[in-house]
């Protein structure tokens, strides 16, 4: 005899537990998480490692690393401590990464959701605007914006967000186009749910996993963009950022390469951690995409 239709299957473990189990399966993603935690710790402990201004003169200029223990990673041509620069730089990089990503994702979600949900002329208009942004190379647009707005850290962050929203917008649009035809959306409309609630409460949670994964890519890209700006001496000179350090280290690249190499390694590891993190998130959030 079959069991009755109304018998329940045993309860599943909570979502977070399932999520962590899936994430844990990817070793590289665990490494990414470890590096990310390390960078966050660096940003948090910067004030303890060096309570003073990281831009002050801390020792004899161009002290090589591991020679003077008051400046373990050496000093640059102006005598600034490289170690505290790297620690304080983590703050700026993370800040820019997080805020610029939030800006980019927010613009992208709103534009993509409207275009994908309503379709028709709304979609046509919004997508033409998106394409107009896409025809201008990212970095050129960023340079223009910074030239207009000035190189204060707030404006740089905003500008990075503004040049990065097109890709998430297109992705959200595609997700919405496939989700809006699903029966559960019809079911919500049939209950009398308003369009705004359908977009943000019904469809968006279902469209989130690929967006979250892509956010990690944008974070990595924004950190690189900021570094590139700083390298061209267009960064905010009032903050120690990794890009600024590389930009200034460029002048002494042959005599004291460590001035540029150490912050460079920091950038490489941080960007790497974000992309490994993204891959792990992808495995954990879209388990069906990958074959076991």
């Amino acid at each position, binding site marked *: 005899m079959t069991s009755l*239709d109304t018998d*329940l299957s045993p309860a599943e473990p909570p979502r977070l537990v399932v999520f962590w189990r899936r994430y844990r399966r990817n070793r590289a993603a665990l490494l990414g998480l470890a590096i990310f935690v390390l960078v966050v710790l660096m940003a948090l402990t910067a004030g303890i490692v060096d309570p003073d201004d990281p831009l002050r003169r801390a020792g004899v200029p161009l002290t090589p690393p591991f020679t003077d223990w008051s400046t373990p990673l050496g000093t640059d041509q102006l005598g600034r401590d490289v170690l505290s620069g790297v620690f304080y730089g983590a703050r700026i990089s993370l800040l820019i990464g997080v805020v610029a990503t939030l800006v980019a994702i927010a613009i992208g979600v709103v534009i993509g959701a409207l275009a994908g949900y309503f379709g028709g002329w709304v979609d046509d208009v919004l997508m033409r605007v998106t394409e107009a942004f896409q025809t201008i190379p990212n970095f050129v647009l960023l340079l223009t914006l910074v030239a207009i707005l000035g190189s204060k850290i707030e404006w740089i962050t905003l500008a990075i967000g503004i040049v990065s929203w097109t890709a998430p917008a297109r992705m959200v649009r595609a997700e919405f186009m496939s989700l809006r035809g699903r029966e559960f959306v019809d079911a919500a409309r*049939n209950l009398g749910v308003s369009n705004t609630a359908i977009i943000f409460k019904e469809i968006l949670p279902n469209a989130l996993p690929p967006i979250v994964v892509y956010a990690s890519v944008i974070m990595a890209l924004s950190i690189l963009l900021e570094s590139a700006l700083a390298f061209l001496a267009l960064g905010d000179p009032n903050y120690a950022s990794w890009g600024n350090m590389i930009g200034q280290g460029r002048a002494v690249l042959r005599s004291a390469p460590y001035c540029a190499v150490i912050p460079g390694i920091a950038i490489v590891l941080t960007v790497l951690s974000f992309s490994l993190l993204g891959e792990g998130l992808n495995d954990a959030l879209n388990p069906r995409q990958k074959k076991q």
Partner: protein
Amino acid sequence: MTDTPPILQIRDLKIALPKGADRPFALEGLDLTINPGEIVCLVGESGSGKSLCAGAIMRLLPEPHVHVAGGAIRFMGDELLAKTETEMRGIRGEDIAMIFQEPMTALNPQKTVGWQLDEVLRLHTKMNKAERKARAIEMLTRVHIPDPASAYNAYPHQISGGQRQRVMIAQALSLSPKLIIADEPTTALDVTTQLQILKLIRELQEQEGAGVLFITHDFGVVAEIADKVAVLCRGEMVEQGPAKEVLNNPQHAYTRALIGAVPALTPPPVKPVTKAPVVLKGTGLKKTFAARGGLLSGKRKAVTAVKDLTFQLHQGETLGVVGESGSGKTTVSRIVTRLLECDAGKVEMDGKDLLACSPAELRAMRKHIQMVFQDPMASLNPRKRVVDLIAQGPIVHGVDPDKARADARRLLELVELSPAAANRFPHEFSGGQRQRIGIARALALEPKVIVADEPVSALDVSVQAQVLKLLADLRDRLNLSLLFVTHDLRVAAQLCDRIIVMQKGEIVEHGLTAEIFASPQHPYTRNLLSSIPGRDWTPPSFRPDAA
């Protein structure tokens, strides 16, 4: 037939499932014999292991996750399990052919019908090009495809679903196989097409003298075609015997339960509902789908889905909308709930035209007319808990969220689900349970009318019976009016007081269910009714204590 050796003999077949599956063996101890010229039906509900049996015979199991763990499969006296992969490749197609459920996915959309028939002959025979083409056309003629020469050059998407299945059958039979395995070959087809295909399989099998292993979940189909029946229940064969025996005098409790769940073709007693007030009235509804042409491609022809449809739904009544795919019945359900804007006509409820409402008025009106969808998985938001899904409607219409959630828990009881279900997500439920959640959600707003669009067609037959019973119970207890869209006349006969028969967007006949079933007037209705599989077989009824 005892003097000829059997074509296929399966002895004590065991198929192992990977660790962590719901049971260790998909099939356990299956014994089956197919003689020449015999059609053996393997019947079971989803998950009973019937398709894996076909995979094991063809040696096409997804190894090593799922593999044969024991037993023997003898084909014409040879042990299939001992064959090498190369030998199997010679047997597949040539000696054992397979017909799949979904002909659209089983045919390559990039190649013409002729090319696909040609390929089989090219791989397995030494015929030259002209002979192969002659043979292919001959096969297309034998499966009764109109104009075989033009079908030979057509692409799969250019011919209808029934014709595609005919092409699949032509392909399977072109090498005169000894054994044909048909895995739910008619499930995706309309009833009238289904009957034609069943007749065709029977006819060709008689001509060729081949054995057929016919896998199905539908006892109507079994009654139509089977010589012998084997019933599977969760991997175990519970009953086997001649079709007449099993269908009319089943021995095992599971078989009895399955057969008892098959809706009988006897309409419900006539209720005096036509005197009750009209709650929903549709007049002159029209809907045309304009096909949007691209910039470079020309405009395509517009498709009329519904033309000039008029109906009335009385209080406490169930009105069935019956028709084959493409008849416009689903379009009707979406127009009435205004999920689809309609071109002309009125849908009146309490004297108010739903189609003329402003968006704000419409949102308020929606609580009076609710919908139960076909696919319970797709119609429940996978990221919401059951209690929130059910309470969503009342909350949108201004009920206090705490009260709405408490009501939702009560509704779960009404649809016979445990209150523990409230905090779970939709994917944790079976199909039938999800449909119960869908019904609870529709009831939460205490609507006057429920529109149900094929609510049971995605469910197994025993679950289907339970859900239908629930719907009928609720309708009587809450005095609901139901607009019930279905393609399945058996289901319509169970539940509907009156039915509308639709063909190509038009009503061809309407009236009391009993009258239409007893004396259909329109030729299309007659054709539909005479195509119900197993219409001459009345499922025996069992007293509850017997089952």
